[in-house]
């Protein structure tokens, strides 16, 4: 495989300016993540200490094998919701190594609102279990949840993907033979009680652990009965009387040690056999990505330069290099795994769509996972293009991408707009993982275009009422529309709403993708089978 010869001038002013900008963005990301992980009101910290509870981050670290990676997912979920008061949606989710096994770790964060489930908490848990199902990853739940946040119940209770889905997913996992271990480290009340109950194994902590559908106060209201927490759902009772819990632990560390011992007993799954060789680092440092991603997101950048800093040895076997050049297709290796890369080098044309559809089928036949690198403003519009069948050809790309049975991974590098964002394995198409870079913009159409359209509409509405706007007033409206639009198409908003699995520092992308590819191979890859391609 040929090595990509980088044409980037790392000494250029442009490179330096880009680097400065993107390093600032990366630092801002890290700082926001740090705050979400560790900044807690003193009283919440004190409460945990009083209850003799470890902070959720320490629980997770103790659970994981030392000296192994942890790919945290949706770290910044809910960062734009609930006035920012529910960091990480009160959940820690990620892929890590426990007793040598790749597992999903899901932990309630009792330092946030007593571990109460908010709507986005539920969404994050459901997503974590979707990941477990799609990739057949065992799950370790570290439960410490005070129940759902009632004032917002309408947003997390009734719908198809609301709280019930957690238990549906748990049941599905069990049916698939993918085991779960729950460690009850605090109260598991109401729906939360089913997390340990639906797990193959569970451990309950003496003293602080309890499982019940209704707490003592609820029982009092409902039946008039006076009961203690211990009688109702304490560790002793559940391990010796009800059989709801399996193992009794006398400290959090003891509970975690038991959980590790249980995971160590899980069968090792034979991974999907895909082509793999010894890994090789890229020939160019990942840090150069900071100088390549343009400061101005409207500027074009060469995706080969990005690929050269993600893949093994910077080697890239480009497919159809002379055709459909706005969609770069080719084979590469990521930590030794063969992958097929589709990367936007401009707007999607008919030929790019046909090339992409063909390449996806090559990879699918070849059992080669697909990596989509998005920088897409959409499919080309216009009479000639429509007459040339751009919609029909775009449908072929969507059909191929949807139908491919190999795992798909998406990184939103910059723009993600229009039907092009769908065709490049958008969230709705269930790529196994979707990550976003800090500067990315995710929206139906681009901000400038949207601002023009929306300002026009506003002006027309006002005109109907007989109001004519001065240029100054128009500018003010334009600005406010632009601001709001920009905010709601930002990577931070997308990740807050869990439209992705997290924002990545570009320099972390290679490792994150490698872990994602490895995780995906726990599920078998089905035989290729497609729908009807409109010819």
């Amino acid at each position: 495989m040929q090595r990509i010869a980088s044409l980037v001038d790392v000494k250029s002013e442009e490179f330096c300016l880009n680097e400065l900008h993107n390093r600032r963005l990366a630092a801002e990301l890290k700082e926001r993540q740090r705050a979400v992980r560790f900044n807690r009101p003193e009283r919440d910290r004190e409460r945990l200490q009083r209850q003799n509870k470890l902070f959720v981050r320490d629980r997770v670290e103790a659970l994981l094998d030392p000296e192994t990676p942890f790919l945290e997912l949706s770290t910044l979920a809910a960062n734009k919701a609930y006035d920012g008061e529910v960091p990480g949606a009160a959940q820690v989710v990620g892929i890590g190594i426990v007793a040598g096994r790749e597992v999903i770790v899901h932990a309630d964060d009792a330092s946030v609102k007593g571990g109460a489930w908010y709507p986005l908490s539920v969404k994050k848990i459901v997503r974590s279990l979707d990941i477990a199902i799609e990739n057949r990853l065992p799950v370790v739940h570290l439960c410490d949840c005070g129940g759902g946040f009632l004032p917002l119940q309408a947003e997390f209770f009734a719908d198809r993907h609301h709280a019930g889905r957690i238990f549906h997913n748990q049941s599905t996992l069990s049916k698939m033979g993918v085991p779960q271990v729950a460690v009850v480290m605090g109260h598991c009340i109401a729906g939360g009680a089913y997390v340990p109950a639906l797990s193959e194994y569970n451990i309950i902590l003496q003293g602080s652990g309890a499982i019940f559908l209704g707490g003592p106060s609820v029982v009092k209201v409902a039946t008039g009965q006076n009961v203690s927490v211990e009688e109702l759902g304490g560790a002793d009772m559940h391990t010796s009387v009800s059989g709801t819990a399996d193992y009794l632990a006398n400290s959090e560390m003891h509970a975690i040690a038991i959980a590790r011992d249980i995971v160590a007993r899980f069968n090792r799954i034979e991974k999907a056999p895909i082509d793999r060789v010894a890994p090789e680092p890229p020939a160019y440092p990942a840090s150069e990505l900071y100088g390549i991603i343009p400061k101005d997101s409207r500027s074009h950048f060469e995706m080969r330069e990005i690929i050269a800093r993600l893949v093994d040895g910077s080697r890239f076997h480009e497919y159809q290099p002379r055709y459909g050049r706005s969609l770069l297709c080719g084979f590469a290796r990521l930590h030794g795994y063969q992958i097929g890369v589709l990367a936007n080098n401009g707007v999607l044309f008919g030929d790019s769509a046909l090339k992409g559809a063909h390449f996806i089928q090559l990879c699918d036949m070849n059992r080669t996972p697909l990596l989509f690198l998005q920088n897409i403003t959409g499919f080309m519009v216009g009479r000639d293009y429509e007459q040339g069948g751009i919609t029909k050809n775009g449908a072929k790309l969507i059909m191929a991408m949807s139908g491919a049975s190999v795992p798909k991974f998406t990184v939103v590098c910059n723009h993600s707009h229009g039907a092009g964002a769908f065709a490049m394995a958008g969230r709705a198409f269930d790529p196994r993982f979707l990550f976003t870079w800090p500067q990315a913009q995710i929206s139906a159409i681009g901000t400038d275009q949207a601002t023009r359209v929306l300002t026009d509409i506003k002006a027309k509405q006002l005109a109907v009422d007989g109001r004519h706007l001065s240029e100054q007033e128009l500018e003010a409206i334009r600005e406010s529309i632009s601001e709001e639009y920009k905010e709601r198409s930002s990577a931070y908003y997308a990740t807050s709403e869990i439209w992705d699995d997290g924002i990545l520092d570009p320099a972390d992308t290679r490792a994150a993708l490698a872990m994602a590819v490895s995780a995906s191979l726990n599920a078998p890859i089905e035989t290729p089978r497609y729908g009807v391609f409109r010819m």
Partner: protein
Amino acid sequence: MRKLPFDTVLIANRGEIAIRIVKTLRELELRSAIVYHDVDAGTPAVSMADVAVPISGRTPVAAYLDAAQIIAAAHEVNAGAVHPGYGFLSENAGFARKVLEAGIVFIGPTPENIELMGDKIRARKFVQRNGFPVAPSAIEEDDPATFISRARSIGAPLLVKPSAGGGGKGMRIARGLDALEHAIVQARSEAQRYFADARLYVERYVEKPRHIEVQVLGDSFGNVIHLFERECSVQRRFQKVIEEAPSPALSAELRKKICETAVDIARAANYRNAGTVEFIFDGSEFYFLEMNTRLQVEHPVTEMITGIDLVAEQVNVAGGHELRLSQPDIVLAGHAIEARVYAEAPARGFAPTTGKILVLDYPVGPDVRIDSGILQGQQITTAFDSMLAKVIVHSPTRTEAALKAERAMQELVLLGCETNTNFLARVLADEQFLSGQVHTGYLDENPHLAAGEFGSDLSAFLAAAALLTRPVRDSADAVPELHASLGSWRN
């Protein structure tokens, strides 16, 4: 060897000293017999003796203290002599007498010698009466009612000792007078239990004293010679740890003086067979401490510097012969050091340890002698003294001997039961020891020697243990290659 009135010698002992005696008996072409308690069945001492007779007791120690069984065993195997070794019945005048009354030769001093010199109080009175120096003391039996007030009047610090016994058993130091009564209560309880004799005496505890002892040998014809001195100042809890000969503290003049004093004391006591006269030496003066009327644990260092087999000389004298050697025949050559290997944990206050000996490899080399009674596979219990082996080296100079002994400690591989070999190696390499400036408080004043910091060896031990522990290694091997290569990466 001149003709002896016996052809079989019963060894009333066990372990390394029993083996030591068997070896000499073989050289003398005498038949060796041994008594043994069940817990010692299969030990090298039992298998090496020509004949072995089982004995029993409420405890293993009690069996080896049972004079009647031992004498019966001697009769059973037609033993004409009994060698008591050290410890157990070796300094029991009653036993010696019973042996003689049974028509058997006792390879050791006469019962009268033991009665006089084996009793600390009687011995010191005797020595004092004969004009030899002794430390200020208060003896309980002189007047039990005034014992404590007499002890107090000596002034602190004081050493409380049982009148009977030895080997440090039951000894207590009272640093201040207020601690005296407590020390007496404890010492009395231990004295009663070990020696069935609760009598005590108290003497001035000399700070920084050196323990120097002289090996003497007497026959029934009034001849007494010495085989120079040994120094045994490296002690913990009154237990000797490292012994050497000659003492680095003595000038030729002092050596002559102390050795001649010992010979004079033994002669005054009409002493027969091998014995040791112990002195306290404060750097300039020495005075009589006690006499050990038996073969000492540390006798090999004397054998190394003189080339004389002490057991053979004991047998010769006990056989009724005159000493084969005269004083001018005894020549001091080079320097010998003995290190005692104990089953103990120096870092935990020298607490005894137990375990099964899984690997045992002794150092080998010229002038390295191992006196040991243990075997690979043997279970070490607390039934007996915790000494497992003695490593004795001989070199032209003290410095070379210390180095050789240190190396021997490092080369000795004894796995399965924690021992003090690391500690011994550290002491042998310690500057203060090498300079010869030791005294009986030396180890207490240098607790770092017992603590034994690991320093740079720590990671080697942890690394080897980790690699040899399946769960530790398995969890490393269980991590998928990719994740291992990413290390503790976090996003």
